[in-house]
């Protein structure tokens, strides 16, 4: 079963991304929204975790990335989506788990 995980906290504030990554199975997608978008940037240890994760796809909500001025720091291999893309991700996966 392919799950969409949403992470809305910065990995420097909360362990929700680590927990989420630990549970995410092959074929699932992790979408960073709100302060979660900090995980999608380069230059810190979280970026390595994303780079080394296999079988899991990563996406980030573009408007939240832009609101924080982080577009130029976006790490490789993370797909940028808008709200329409967010809706599509929800529809494409079997279920949604919000890591609040």
């Amino acid at each position, binding site marked *: 079963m392919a799950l969409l995980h949403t992470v*809305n906290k910065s990995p420097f504030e909360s362990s929700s991304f680590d927990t989420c990554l630990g549970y995410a199975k092959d074929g699932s997608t992790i979408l960073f*929204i*709100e*302060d979660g978008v900090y995980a999608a940037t380069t230059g810190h240890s979280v970026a390595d975790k994303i780079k080394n994760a296999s079988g899991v796809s990563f996406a980030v*909500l573009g*408007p*939240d990335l832009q609101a924080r001025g982080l577009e130029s720091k976006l790490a490789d291999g993370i797909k940028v989506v*808008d*709200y*329409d893309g*967010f*809706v*599509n991700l*929800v*529809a494409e996966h079997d*279920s*949604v788990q*919000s890591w*609040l």
Partner: protein
Amino acid sequence: MKFSIQINEGPYQHQASDTAYQFTKAALAAGHEIFRVFFYHDGVNNATRLAVPPQDDRNIGKLWQELGKENNLDMVVCIAAAQRRGMMDADEAKRQGLDTDNIAAAFRISGLGQLIEAGINSDRLVVFGA
């Protein structure tokens, strides 16, 4: 596809209500059905009809009310969460002997069963929160 939305965070607290609003709008625009929007925990504060934010700021409650009316959304406020926080519709205020009510007409008060029902009847339940 049939979606339901759960909101656990109040307006202006952080970003959950804004994200949920933008998501709901995009889902409707893409032709999906919104079975229900359920306001739970501090999320019940989105239902106030008395919020007056600064003019150059978004009025989150009003945005929900307008989206609800335009799309005939079933926007449900959890009764137990609402009563704890002083959120009352006219009927409930009268029953409790209070001198006023504050829940906008676009919302209705009901119980947790409505959330369970939304989960059963929808293809996806998306939770937004603090």
